[in-house]
C-alpha cells in the first residue's frame, strides 16, 4: 500500500483560502450504496430543529435551498419574498409530494413552521419571535405576518427552519416523530427506510424527488464518534465518507489512496466563553487577557493540524459570503483587531481587573473531543502563564449538552469550550444568542452581558429592511462587542470532508448542515 506511515509528522501546511472547495463537481453515474459516517454520533432525532445532524437535511427539504456557497435558491417554495415590511408570502412549487406520494400542501407548511414558532426548545424558535401569525392563504400559498421587519427570516426558512413535514404523518407519530421508533415523512431527496438505534440509519433515494432522483440509491449512516476508529474506517474504505474528520489524521488522509480530504469553507469556530456572571470569567479584561495569552497560529497547527485560520471575532466571514451587503460586513470584519500574543499586556490586564487570581476557574469540555481536550490543555497552559488557574471538567455528551439547557448544570463552571457554527446564512443568528439580554433571545448570555448600543444595533440589523443599512448597523455593533470577547475565538475551522475516490458531488462546505448535501452525490 502507498500509505505513508513512515515519514515523520511535521508542522502541517496551512490552507490557502482560495483553494477551499464548497462543493465537488456534480456526479454523473449512479451508485448503489454509500456509507457515511457521522462523527458526531447518533442523532437524537432527525426532525429539523430538534437536533443538528447531517441526516435531516437529506430527508427534509426546506422551503428554500441553501447552496454550498451559502447563497439561497428556491426549494419546495417557488418563491418566498416580503410583500411588505411585515408580510412574507410563500408560494409552493407545483407537484411536490412527500415520500408516500401525498402532495405537499400549504397546511403542511403552516404545520411545519408552527412547530418552530410554538416550541421554545426548538432550535429555530428565535427565527420566529417576530411572527404574529401565519396562515394558508391558498392550497399552495402561505402568508406570514410579523410585528416588525425581519431580515433574517428568509435565511431561516432556507435552513432546517423551513423544512416541511407531513402534517398527517407527524401528528400521527406524536412524540416519537423523528426517532427510530416514529420515523418521519418529508419531501427530501432521500427517504428514511430504517433506523437501528446505535447502529445505522438507512435512507434510500426518493425517485420522485422534485429536483430529480439522487444518484446514490442507498445512503446508510453509521455512527463513529471515535476519531481514530473513524480514520481507520475511512482509510480502510469501510466507510465512503464523512464530514468533520479528525484534523489529527490529516497526514494519513492526505496520503490515502482510498479517498481524498476536501477542505471547504465553514462558519465553524473553536472558542470558549463564560458560563457565569460571577468572578473572573465574567470580566471582559480577564477574557481579553486569556485571548492575548494564546498563540493562534500555534493553536491552529496543534489542534487543527493547519486546517483552520485565525478568526477575529466569533462570527465567521463565510456567514455573509452569499449576502447582498457582503462588502459592508467584510469591511467591518477587516477593521477588527487580529488577535495576537502579548503576554505582558495580558498580565497587566489581569492585574488591572482586580480579580482574585487564587480562585481556580473551571472550563467544561465535552468528552471524546480530541480538539476540545487539546484546546482545554492549551487554555490551561496559557492561563497559567498569566497567573490564572484553570481546571478542566470533561463531561459526557448528555451532561455537556445540559450546560446549554440547564442552569444547574452550569453550577461550578466558569467557562465552556465549544465548536460553534451557524448552518444558516446571515450574521445575526449566532451572536444574538450571546449578546442580547436573555429575554430578547440571548439564551447563552450567561455572563449577563448587557450593552444598550449593542442590543439596539443588533435589533436594528434585524428589523431594517434595507440590506446595506442593516449590515452597517451590525458592523457598528460588532465594533463594540468584539473586544468584549463573549466568546474567546481561538480559530476558524474549515469544513473537512473525506470522500472515497469513487465519489463526487457532495457539498463540502458548512451548508451540509442545512441543505441536501448528498443530492448530487454519486459516481465520478
Amino acid at each position: 500500500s502507498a500509505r505513508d506511515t513512515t515519514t515523520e509528522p511535521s508542522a502541517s501546511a496551512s490552507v490557502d483560502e482560495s483553494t477551499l472547495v464548497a462543493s465537488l463537481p456534480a456526479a454523473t453515474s449512479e451508485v448503489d450504496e454509500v456509507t457515511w459516517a457521522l462523527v458526531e454520533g447518533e442523532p437524537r432525532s432527525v426532525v429539523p430543529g430538534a437536533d443538528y445532524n447531517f441526516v435531516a437535511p437529506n430527508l427534509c427539504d426546506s422551503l428554500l435551498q441553501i447552496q454550498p456557497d451559502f447563497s439561497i435558491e428556491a426549494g419546495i417554495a417557488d418563491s418566498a419574498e416580503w410583500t411588505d415590511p411585515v408580510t412574507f408570502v410563500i408560494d409552493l412549487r407545483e407537484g411536490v409530494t412527500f415520500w408516500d406520494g401525498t402532495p405537499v400542501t400549504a397546511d403542511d407548511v403552516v404545520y411545519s413552521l408552527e412547530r418552530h414558532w410554538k416550541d421554545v426548545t426548538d432550535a429555530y424558535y428565535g427565527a420566529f419571535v417576530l411572527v404574529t401569525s401565519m396562515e394558508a392563504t391558498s392550497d399552495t400559498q402561505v402568508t406570514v405576518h410579523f410585528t416588525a421587519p425581519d431580515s433574517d427570516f428568509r435565511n431561516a426558512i432556507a435552513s432546517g427552519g423551513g423544512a416541511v413535514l407531513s402534517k398527517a404523518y407527524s401528528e400521527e407519530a406524536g412524540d416519537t416523530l423523528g426517532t427510530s421508533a416514529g420515523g418521519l415523512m418529508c419531501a427530501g431527496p432521500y427517504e428514511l427506510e430504517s433506523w437501528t438505534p446505535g447502529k445505522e440509519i438507512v435512507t434510500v433515494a426518493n425517485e420522485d424527488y422534485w429536483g430529480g432522483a439522487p444518484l446514490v440509491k442507498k445512503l446508510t449512516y453509521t455512527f463513529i464518534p471515535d476519531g481514530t476508529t473513524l480514520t481507520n474506517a475511512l482509510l480502510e474504505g469501510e466507510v465512503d465518507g464523512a464530514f468533520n474528520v479528525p484534523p489529527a489524521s490529516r497526514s494519513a488522509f492526505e496520503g490515502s489512496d482510498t479517498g481524498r480530504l476536501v477542505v471547504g469553507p465553514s462558519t465553524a469556530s473553536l472558542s470558549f466563553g463564560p458560563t457565569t456572571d460571577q468572578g473572573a470569567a465574567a470580566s471582559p479584561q480577564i477574557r481579553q487577557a486569556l485571548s492575548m495569552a494564546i498563540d493562534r497560529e500555534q493553536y491552529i497547527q496543534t489542534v487543527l493540524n493547519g486546517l483552520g485560520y485565525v478568526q477575529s471575532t466569533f462570527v465567521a466571514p463565510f456567514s455573509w459570503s452569499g449576502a447582498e451587503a457582503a462588502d459592508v460586513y467584510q469591511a467591518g470584519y477587516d477593521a477588527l483587531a487580529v488577535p495576537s500574543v502579548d503576554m505582558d499586556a495580558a498580565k497587566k490586564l489581569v492585574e488591572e481587573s482586580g480579580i482574585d487570581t487564587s480562585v481556580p476557574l473551571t472550563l467544561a469540555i465535552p468528552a471524546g473531543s480530541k480538539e476540545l481536550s487539546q484546546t482545554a490543555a492549551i487554555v490551561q497552559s496559557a492561563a497559567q502563564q498569566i497567573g490564572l488557574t484553570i481546571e478542566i471538567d470533561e463531561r459526557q455528551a448528555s451532561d455537556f449538552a445540559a450546560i446549554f439547557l440547564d442552569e444547574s448544570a452550569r453550577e461550578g463552571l466558569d467557562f465552556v469550550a465549544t465548536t460553534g457554527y451557524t448552518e444558516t446564512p446571515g450574521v445575526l443568528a449566532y451572536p444574538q444568542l450571546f449578546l442580547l439580554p436573555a429575554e430578547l433571545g440571548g439564551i447563552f448570555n450567561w455572563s449577563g452581558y448587557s450593552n444598550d448600543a449593542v442590543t439596539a444595533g443588533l435589533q436594528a440589523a434585524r428589523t431594517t429592511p434595507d440590506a446595506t443599512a442593516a449590515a452597517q448597523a451590525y458592523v457598528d455593533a460588532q465594533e463594540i462587542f468584539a473586544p468584549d470577547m463573549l466568546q474567546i475565538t481561538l480559530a476558524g475551522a474549515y469544513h473537512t470532508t473525506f470522500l472515497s475516490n469513487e465519489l463526487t458531488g457532495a457539498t463540502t462546505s458548512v451548508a451540509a448542515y442545512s441543505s441536501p448535501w448528498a443530492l448530487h452525490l454519486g459516481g465520478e
Partner: protein
Amino acid sequence: MSVAQLAGGRVPGLARRVAARDPLFLAAAVVTVLIVAMALFGPLLAPYDPNALYVGPLSAPPSLEHPFGTDDLGRDILSRVLAGAASSVVAPVFVVLLSTLLGAALAIASAWFGGAVDAVSSRVIEVIFAIPGLVLAVLAVAMFGKGLVAPIIALSIAYLPIVARLVRTSARSELAQPYMAALRIQGVGSLAICFRHLVPALLPAILAQSTIGFGYAMLDLAAISFLGLGAQPPSSDWGIMIAAGQPALLTGAPEQSMFPALFVVVTVLAVNILGARVTTWAEGAER
C-alpha cells in the same frame, strides 16, 4: 542513604548470589524498584514539566532532548510517563489493598465462624464473582461518574472474591490442622490464635495473590482509562496516554502510545514475575 548502606553493605554480595541463581527475579525486582521510585519521585525526575505545552515540536520522534519524543501538544512524553507513574501505579495498589483487606477479613470471618456467617459470605462472594469486574466498574461509573475513584472501588469489590476464595480455603484448611485444635486445648485465647497463628499462616498466600492482583488491577484500570471511563485528561495516566496516542499511531508516531504501553507491560511483567516467585516461596514455606 542507599539501600546498600542500610543493609550494612551486604547487598552487593546478596545481589550477586541472587543474580547468579535467579537473574529473572533480580531483573524483575530492579524494574519494580525503579517503577516504585517513579511512582514516588516521578515528577521530580521528569526533565520537563509534564503538563507544559510546546516544550518541543509537536509529535516529534525520540531525540536526545526528548528521549521518548513529544506528543501532539508538544509535551515531553518521558516526563509525562514519569509523572503518570504515580496514578498508574498507586491506583492498582489501592485496589489490591482494599480488595485484600476486605476479602481476607471476610474470608477469615467466614472460615472462623462457619455456619451462617460462612453461608452468607460465600453467597455474597459468589454474587460478586458473577459480575465481571469491568461490568462492575462500568456500573460504578454509570452511577458515580467518571474518574479513578469509582473504578478503584468497583475493582476492589470485583477482586474481593478472588482473594476471599483463596483465603477462605487456606484458612479453613489451616483451621482444620491439628495444631489449631492443640492451641485451643492449651487454652490459648481466640484472638491470639487468630492473629498469632492463623493470619501469619495465611500471609504468604495473600502476598502472592496480591502481586498477581496488582498486575490485573493495573491492566483493568488502564483499560478503563482507555475506554474513557477512568482517569481523565490532562492526567498523564498511562492508560489515557495510550488512548490519546492512538491517532498519532495512524500518522506514524507510535511513540505516543507505545512508550506508556511499554511501561504498563513491563510493570505488570515485573510484578508478575515477583508474584510467581513469592508464590513459589509461599508454597515452599508450606512444606
